[in-house]
C-alpha cells in the first residue's frame, strides 16, 4: 500500500487554508488549524486506507480541527441569541411593517454566468467579509461545512429558531450586497 508522502500532503495546503479561512475568518487561526491537520495526517497516514481521495480524507480531519477551534472560541465568546453585531437593525430596514419586502428583489437574469467572472469573485469575497463575524461563522458552518441544523445548534448552544433567524439574516445581507455591487441595475 502506498503511503502518502509529506509532499503529497503539502499539495493540499492551499485548498485546506482557503477552506479554513472561509470558516474561521482569522488568518492566524486558519494557519494553526491547517498545520494541525497536516501534522495529524502525517502521523496518521499509515491509517489512510485509500478508500476515499486524500482530499476528502484531509478535509475530514480539517473539519474536526475547525470544530474544535470554534468550540474553543465559543467558550471564550458565547454566541448569544440576538447578538449578531447590529445586523438586526440593518436587515429590518429591508422590510415593511407587514413583513414583506421594502424593495422587491430584482431578477438577476442568468446569475450562473457571474461564476465565470474573476471580478465577480472579488466582489463575492468582499460581500462575505462584510458579514458580522458571528453571523458569518454560523452561515459558514451551514454552507461550507454543511453541518445539519441539529449539529450547529448543539455546537453553539442555540435553538433552531435562533439558527434560522441568523441564517436568514446572513443570506439577506449577502444577497443585498451582491445585488448592489454586482447584479444592480437589473430589471425588476
Amino acid at each position, binding site marked *: 500500500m502506498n503511503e502518502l508522502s509529506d509532499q503529497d500532503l503539502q499539495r493540499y495546503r492551499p*485548498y485546506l487554508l482557503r477552506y479554513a479561512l472561509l470558516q474561521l475568518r482569522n488568518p492566524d487561526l486558519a494557519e494553526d488549524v491547517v498545520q494541525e491537520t497536516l501534522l495529524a495526517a502525517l502521523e496518521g497516514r499509515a491509517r489512510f486506507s485509500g478508500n476515499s481521495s486524500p482530499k476528502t480524507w484531509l478535509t475530514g480531519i480539517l473539519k474536526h480541527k475547525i470544530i474544535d477551534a470554534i468550540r474553543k472560541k465559543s467558550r471564550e465568546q458565547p454566541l448569544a441569541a440576538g447578538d449578531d453585531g447590529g445586523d438586526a437593525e440593518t436587515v429590518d430596514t429591508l422590510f415593511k411593517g407587514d413583513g414583506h419586502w421594502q424593495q422587491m428583489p430584482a431578477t438577476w437574469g442568468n446569475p450562473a454566468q457571474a*461564476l465565470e467572472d474573476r471580478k465577480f469573485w472579488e466582489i463575492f469575497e468582499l460581500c462575505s467579509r462584510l458579514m458580522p463575524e458571528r453571523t458569518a461563522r454560523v452561515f459558514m458552518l451551514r454552507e461550507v461545512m454543511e453541518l445539519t441544523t441539529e449539529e450547529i445548534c448543539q455546537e453553539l448552544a442555540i435553538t433552531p429558531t435562533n439558527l434560522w433567524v441568523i441564517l436568514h439574516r446572513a443570506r439577506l445581507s449577502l444577497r443585498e450586497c451582491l445585488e448592489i455591487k454586482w447584479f444592480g441595475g437589473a430589471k425588476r
Partner: protein
Amino acid sequence: MLLSQAQERPLGRAERWSVQVHLFLCNGCRNFRTQLEFLRAAVRRYRDGGEAR
C-alpha cells in the same frame, strides 16, 4: 423567511401551500428563491476552489 428555512428543513404541507401561493403572486419572492439557490451554489464553488482565475 420560510423560503430561507426551506433550505434547512422540509416544510410542512400547509407551509408549502402558503409558499406556493405566495410565489405565484410575488415576482420579488420568486427572484429571492432563485437567488438563495445561487448563493448556496456560489459559496460551495468558492469553497471548492472552482472560481475562474
